[in-house]
């Protein structure tokens, strides 16, 4: 690959009501092989994808929430969660799964992947991207 581009994956939907979140997550993991500069954004009901304690045993659906923990190993280390979306839903950062990545340039220190950002910050971030995907 000659040129690195900035890729943003925007997740706007709740985890189990549609197949978008699962499909989107798979696209991110596949896309990680192309070594682009990748970030994920969670807004609107997309913030529910990162809710702690998902347990699908009684409903018979596939619980794909543990897959988000693998993102760090695929060098997807920036997950931006919109503060306003959390607040509208009565959630705080403590409600989200603790996701981390290991920084090889810093003696493999574990660092948090989730960053809570404001709508204004997100708006600036969106403007910087070369490619934006929506799920």
């Amino acid at each position, binding site marked *: 690959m000659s040129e690195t581009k900035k890729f943003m994956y925007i997740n706007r939907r*709740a985890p*189990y009501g549609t197949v978008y979140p699962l499909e989107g997550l798979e696209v991110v993991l596949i896309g990680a092989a192309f070594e682009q500069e990748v970030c994920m954004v969670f807004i609107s009901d997309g913030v529910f994808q990162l809710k702690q*304690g*998902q*347990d*699908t045993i*009684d409903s018979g659906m596939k*619980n794909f929430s543990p897959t988000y923990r693998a993102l760090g190993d695929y060098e997807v280390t920036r997950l931006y969660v919109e503060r306003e979306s959390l607040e*509208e839903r009565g959630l705080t950062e403590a409600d989200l799964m603790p996701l981390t990545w290991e920084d090889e340039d810093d003696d493999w220190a574990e660092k948090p992947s989730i960053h809570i950002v404001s709508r204004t910050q997100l708006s600036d971030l969106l403007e910087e991207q070369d490619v934006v995907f929506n799920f």
Partner: protein
Amino acid sequence: MLHTVNKSPFESTSLKTCLGLAKSGSDILLIEDGVYGALAGTIHTIMLAEATGTISVYALGPDLKARGLPEDRLIPGIKVVGYDGFVELACANDKVQSWL
């Protein structure tokens, strides 16, 4: 009448429409993404909290559990039922209206 709502109130107006048309004494069962409507402390909480006085509101336990929503985060007065409770509600009411 039993009303079922399967959409998140943050994404769809189906819960609002349902609450506007459901008569006092009705049952409302939140299923699938509809269970997000049962959450306390959200911008939509007041809408459902006000209805629980005259309408019995239920939420499907397995769908809450899948989404990581424990009972202590729900609006007081909402009853959590299992699939057996869903069947009982469907049988106890003469009609079922699904707000898809």
